[in-house]
């Protein structure tokens, strides 16, 4: 007898419908599983039969064929165990085929019939909704994740027997409160880190505020122990709350990667990724035969922090160039292209030289050549993608001892949220959200300084040898500063602050 179960799988971060067909007929007893399967799917054969037997059903000695279609798509993962078991049981008549067509079923089986959680639930449920399915049977460990999808009826099952009962209608799922994402933020009270723990470093804090408000990528330079890492670790506390769309995107990505618990704290957190500097280009961009999201995608809608930028593998850094422009990364494989979103705030920190103490010549032991070499390990095209650059200096001893508290995360976040709102309403017809995304003509439209600012900018442009690129970046950053001060015009004050944070070029250390 033939039966068909609907299941799903994840390709990239998109779900796809996969049908599991079983046919049990008379003939020489055999058992085969086909459909372009990876080895973990092939192994399902043994897992499934044992767990069916241990759940109290008997499999007769018959000819069993199972096919996963479409058969030209490579199947990976353990989520087909449950649908395979259901399809066999349905062919044997334990489950009614009529009910079966309403469900999308995924889950991994243990030998005892228990259902274990799997990766990628959220995109699969979203796909199911799109195809008109209203109910999904998922492992009970994945229910929380599945509920985020909204309209779907997500039924969590603990074991195979439970799944059969639900399908046959012998058991009604408990009414669960559908989980929706509220646009809440980090509660600063509950958060263990806060910007007011950083004594001094007002310049660094100010530039972080600007970076977050305008989504400007930022480079921090400074000696070891200046508090670069400490400050960056506190950036999440000042980032505005995720919108519902953003949160869903983030949840999908983490669901695929099987790291959902990392960003779930009663709500979706803004992701923060800090890959170690030994990270490979594949890990950064995403890789695998069927590519999995890499670091840049995991930091989508969040923060990507590269500490010790100078130590990173050059290839891993050059990978960043395309995503920083396009806000996504395309990974090509022979069987197709995968597009992952990658719209993140990039913050990088590095020492100004190998020993880390330049320009403090009383401590720096590097030769001018060494300093130049160290800095030139970052390519100019990558440097060009930073809008802000700040020098973090050793904390001022007095302020440190006095424990002089600076601005707190909460006050900073209030300003940032206001600035983000201003940008959003200003750019509602432009299809962008942040000042950093402005380009070409739009800069002239929105960032034009007043007469005073223009005069100052012209003078600085001539005397300080800016490039044209630097000129436009200064305008964009100045716009963000004006937004933070709730000013409609970009004034000389804003321009001069932006000039102060301008990005270094390879002329840095020229005077050695």
């Amino acid at each position, binding site marked *: 007898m033939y039966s068909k179960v609907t299941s799903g799988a994840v390709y990239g971060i998109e779900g796809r419908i996969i049908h599991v067909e079983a046919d049990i007929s008379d003939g020489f007893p055999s058992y085969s599983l086909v459909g372009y399967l990876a080895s973990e799917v092939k192994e399902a054969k043994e897992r499934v039969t044992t767990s069916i037997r241990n759940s109290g059903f008997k499999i007769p000695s018959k000819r069993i064929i199972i096919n996963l279609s479409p058969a030209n798509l490579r199947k990976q993962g353990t989520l087909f165990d449950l649908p395979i078991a259901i399809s066999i049981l349905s062919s044997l008549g334990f489950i009614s085929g009529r009910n079966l067509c309403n469900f999308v079923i995924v889950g991994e089986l243990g030998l005892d019939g228990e259902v274990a959680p799997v990766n990628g639930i959220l995109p699969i449920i979203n796909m199911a909704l799109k195809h008109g399915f209203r109910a999904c049977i998922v492992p009970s460990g994945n229910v929380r994740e599945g509920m985020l999808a909204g309209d779907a009826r997500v039924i969590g099952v603990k074991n195979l027997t439970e799944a059969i009962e639900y399908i046959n209608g012998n058991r009604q799922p408990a009414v669960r409160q559908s989980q929706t994402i509220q646009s809440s933020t980090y509660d600063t009270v509950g958060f263990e880190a806060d910007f007011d723990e950083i004594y001094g470093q*007002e*310049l660094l804090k100010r530039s972080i505020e600007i970076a977050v408000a305008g989504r400007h990528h930022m480079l921090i*330079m400074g000696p070891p122990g200046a508090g670069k890492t400490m400050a960056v670790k506190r950036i999440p506390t000042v980032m505005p709350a995720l919108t519902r769309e953003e949160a869903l995107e983030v949840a999908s990505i983490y669901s695929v990667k099987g790291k959902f618990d990392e960003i779930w704290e009663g709500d979706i957190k803004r992701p923060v990724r800090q890959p170690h500097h030994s990270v490979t280009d594949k890990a950064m961009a995403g890789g695998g035969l069927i590519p999995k999201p890499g670091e840049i995608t995991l930091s989508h809608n969040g923060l990507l922090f590269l500490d010790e930028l100078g130590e990173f593998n050059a290839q891993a850094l050059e990978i960043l160039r395309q995503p920083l422009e396009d806000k996504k990364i395309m990974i090509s494989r022979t069987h197709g292209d995968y597009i992952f979103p990658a719209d993140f705030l990039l913050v990088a920190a590095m020492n100004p030289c190998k020993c880390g103490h330049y*320009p403090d*010549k009383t401590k720096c032991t590097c030769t001018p050549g060494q300093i130049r070499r160290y800095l030139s390990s970052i390519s100019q095209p990558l440097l060009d993608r930073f809008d802000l650059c700040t020098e973090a200096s050793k904390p001022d001893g007095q302020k440190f001892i006095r424990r002089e508290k600076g601005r707190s995360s909460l006050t900073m976040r209030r300003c940032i949220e206001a600035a983000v709102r201003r940008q959003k309403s200003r750019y509602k017809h432009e299809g962008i959200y942040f000042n950093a995304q402005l380009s070409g003509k739009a800069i002239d439209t929105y960032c034009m300084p007043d007469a005073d600012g223009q005069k100052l900018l012209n003078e600085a442009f001539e005397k*300080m040898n800016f490039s044209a690129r630097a000129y436009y970046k200064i305008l964009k950053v100045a716009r963000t500063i004006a937004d933070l001060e709730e000013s409609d015009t970009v004034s000389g004050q804003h321009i001069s*602050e932006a000039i102060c944070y301008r990005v270094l070029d390879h002329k840095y250390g020229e005077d050695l």
Partner: protein
Amino acid sequence: MNMELYWFWLCTIPGIGIKTIEKLLNYFKTPRDIFNAASERLESIQEIDNLKTAAILKSRDISKLQREYDKLIDRKIHFISCESAEFPQRLTHLPDMPRGIFYQGKLPEANRLSIAIIGARNCTSYGREMAGGFAKQLAASDIQVIGGLARGVDVSAHKGALLNGGDTFAVLGCGINYCYPREHIEVFEKMKSAGGIISEYGLGVSPDAWRFPMRNRIISGLSDGIFIVEARDRSGALITAHMGLEQGKDIFALPGRAFDALSEGCNNLIKAGAKMVTKPEEILEEYQIKFKKNKKNQIILDKFEELVYSSLCLIPKNIDDVADEVRLSISQVIPILLRLELKGCIKQAARNQYIINL
């Protein structure tokens, strides 16, 4: 073949240095005699080993020599021997004076005062600014500034002198056509028309480490006074200072903080009797030259600019510290700093680290 060409030959034989030249000149009166000497005669000199004799014999090729000499003229490089009337008088007092020198541009004039400004390559911004500031003022008072085109203090002095259109001279430790280190090419080119490039080595001689102490004797030899800006204990700059002492030159030193390793050499020189100077005037008064006051310093600063300016010195200070010191917020201080920078009163020693501009 004229005598200059013979001198040129003697000074450019590969493997033959100043010591061998002196030995040869002891045996033969003139370079022409050496050129024309029978090979047995040369080989019979005990003090000169066979390798060197072979090199001398091999290089005695008139047509090749003429070609090399023409190459110099093509490149506007001059060669003068110690017998030439133009040869700097100051160098003739050296016990191991170069027998010939190459130069581009011009040579330091004998009747104008020349001061060497030397110091550490890996100097602090204090050293860099002081060297530049002194050179600028000295150049304004018509003094020739001499240095070694090295990184750090030397090149800052050259740059400072060029700023005021003064004459500045670099003595190289490599061939006259090499700019070493090569990032100083801009200064190198400028000096050809405002001062000159001097070397005792001809075309294509590579910058080997051992040549640099040798050229120091020419730096000190060409100058009337030597000003050491920043030097570690037992550094190259101190070698020059000691050579200068032996040659009877005046030694000036810029004091530094007691614990600064980079000023240790200077401070020791002061203890040993070098004249401590903190202003260019103090060098000038030694030579009874009146200091020409720079009129450019007439920049009007407002109250806040004055306040911020007064909080800066030659030790780099970051924005946080400045803001803390003048009790203004970061966003108030930044525009003031930018205005001061655009007015040329201050500059950035490194990113966001400010010092006053001398």
